[in-house]
């Protein structure tokens, strides 16, 4: 057989990105369920709090971030499940080249569907919580800066639990502690912005956490998947 030139990282990324998009298009409902959950949970909170604008606005940052964390986790639960069951992950690990390139493509699509869409929907979410209009911009900014870390750290936990039949709760228990720094800076930024303070530091912190996640998580996901697939 001819010795093959392995395809470059860019082509592998593109191939995997296309595949993930095709999967999403084939089953769009699945991908959008976490967003539906986010909207529903947020309306429940608004109803439960009695619709008092002052009460809601005071807690808006914390409520929004907590629900974004949970919705992100919901989406991550099925991130690797189907590929694991169908043997696609096995084939990825056998590529004979760094597996984090296709994994990054997978995570990018996952983030576009969760974090990125949530950023775009943030104005609607903010209105439901009576967040003043001048804080909507900063809400979108902190979600944009912080949400990659949610997807990336959560993916490590998802990779660790993919081999378990009922890994959903364990996934939450593993991932939620990793989300604490993002929650602190994200919710803090929204309430500080409400008080008229400067939130540049919080945004930088969120970006730093996301960069750290981008550096560490692909390797964590790879190692976790190898463990999950061994003798499965």
């Amino acid at each position: 057989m001819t010795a093959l030139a392995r395809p470059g990282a860019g082509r592998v990324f593109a191939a995997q990105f296309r595949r993930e998009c095709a999967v999403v298009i084939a089953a769009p409902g699945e991908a959008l369920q976490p967003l539906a959950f986010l909207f529903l949970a947020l309306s429940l909170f608004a109803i439960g709090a009695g619709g008092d604008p002052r009460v809601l606005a005071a807690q808006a940052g914390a409520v929004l971030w907590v629900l974004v964390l949970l919705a992100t986790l919901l989406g991550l639960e099925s991130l690797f499940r189907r590929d694991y069951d169908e043997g696609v992950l096995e084939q990825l690990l056998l590529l004979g080249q760094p597996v984090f390139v296709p994994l990054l493509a997978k995570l990018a699509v996952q983030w576009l569907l969760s974090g990125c869409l949530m950023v775009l929907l943030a104005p609607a979410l903010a209105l439901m919580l009576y967040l003043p209009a001048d804080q909507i911009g900063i809400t979108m900014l902190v979600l944009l800066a912080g949400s990659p870390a949610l997807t990336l750290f959560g993916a490590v936990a998802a990779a660790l639990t993919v081999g378990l039949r009922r890994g959903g709760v364990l996934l939450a228990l593993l991932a939620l502690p990793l989300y604490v720094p993002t929650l602190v800076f994200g919710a803090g930024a929204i309430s500080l912005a409400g008080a008229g303070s400067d939130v540049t530091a919080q945004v930088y912190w969120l970006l730093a956490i996301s960069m750290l996640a981008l550096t560490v998580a692909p390797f964590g996901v790879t190692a976790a998947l190898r463990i999950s697939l061994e003798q499965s």
Partner: protein
Amino acid sequence: MPTKSGSAVLLALRDLGCVRDGRWLFRHLSLELPAGAALELTGPNGSGKSTLLRTVAGLDEPQAGSVRCAPHLYLGHRPGLSSLLTVAANLRWYAELQGVAPDLERVLNRVGLAGYAEVACRSLSAGQLRRVALARLCLGGASLWLLDEPLTALDASGQALVADLIAEHLASGGAAVWSTHQPLGVVGARQLTLGPAVEVGVDSEDDMTQPLPRLEETRA
């Protein structure tokens, strides 16, 4: 595709041993497969055929010994195909990751699925799904094939197809290892039987294996 000389070793196992549930499935397994050679693994359920193939592929870590092998293709019990995507999308994805040009029409003709390119994999039968997985073999790109019970779910013509594909692959300088419960009938394939009744069938080659003691309940 004659870039490798006939003597190139595509798979070398040295003193390989695998433990599962406190038992040696096999140990002291040493063998070499040169280009053009094939190895048929047989043995009862649970004798370690799948584990051996997964270890060679690199999915499982051996407890002893080492594996050296050429770029390989592994076909396990799970097809490695997304049920949501079409046959063409699955194969194109695989070919792109392998860096080979997908000649889908030829490949699907070869496995008897002409006209199925745009059908979603979830609406295929088990045998057809298996044929799509076999189509990966036809895409090329790997010199060593590792096939775990490739005959599963296939009809008579599908089983003949597997044997033909392997024979062509060997003729073009590849090598193959497969596990099976019924002989594939590939000419020149060596036999290796795993299991309690330790026996090693060697077809005249001298580099094949040492005896395979099956040591139950032995600690690693």
